[in-house]
């Protein structure tokens, strides 16, 4: 089951394209598949504990997976996954 994954910034440099195809029944499985294809992929977006970095947004279609089932969010063949660095800061 091929899922289209749109990437940007450092990940785009790593995979050499704007989007890649990956496999997985969940977002977590998809990220593991992309790590196998592009070593270092997961390090860019998650920590040693396997949890996503706070400053990374992963979307399934239009929804941030934090508001779905996080890494357990199920995927189907026509889903599009997008990964964007969060955009945050502030004076304090």
């Amino acid at each position, binding site marked *: 089951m091929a899922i289209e994954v749109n990437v940007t910034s450092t990940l785009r440099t790593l995979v050499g394209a704007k989007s890649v195809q990956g496999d997985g029944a969940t977002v977590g499985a998809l990220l593991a598949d992309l790590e196998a294809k592009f070593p270092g992929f997961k390090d860019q977006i998650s920590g040693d504990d396997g949890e996503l970095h706070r400053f990374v947004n992963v*979307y399934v279609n239009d929804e941030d997976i934090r508001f779905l089932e996080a890494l357990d969010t199920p995927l189907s063949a026509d889903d599009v996954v997008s990964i*964007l660095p969060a955009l945050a800061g502030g004076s304090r």
Partner: protein
Amino acid sequence: MLTLPKDHVDEMIAHAKEDVPNECCGIIAGENRKATKLYRAINAEASPYRYSVEPKDLLRIYRDLDSNDWDVLVIYHSHTQTEAHPSPTDIRLAAWEDAYYVIVSLQDDGNPVVRAFRIQDGEVTEEEMEIA
């Protein structure tokens, strides 16, 4: 050197003033380092001290600029009470290494200050800014 059209600079200042007491945030898209479009973003924090672009709004903006083959040239936000310099929070959360981080300070509200920086691996470098 970052070159921005005057209307984008004016727009960032206007946005900062409108969102007082909270910080504002937004993105300026670019093509070959030339600014193409300014997008106001929703600050999900709605806070005087923090900003975070609301995730769906970020995706909306990014899809629009990416479909035009533009890049994220500038990420801007305001500091309402402090100087136009990246705070420790700004540095810790800076995830877009290729973008200019522009800060609008309203510390002296009659005289807004706009400055541009790169934030890469925790290192801050001020960049010259030219208003064209």
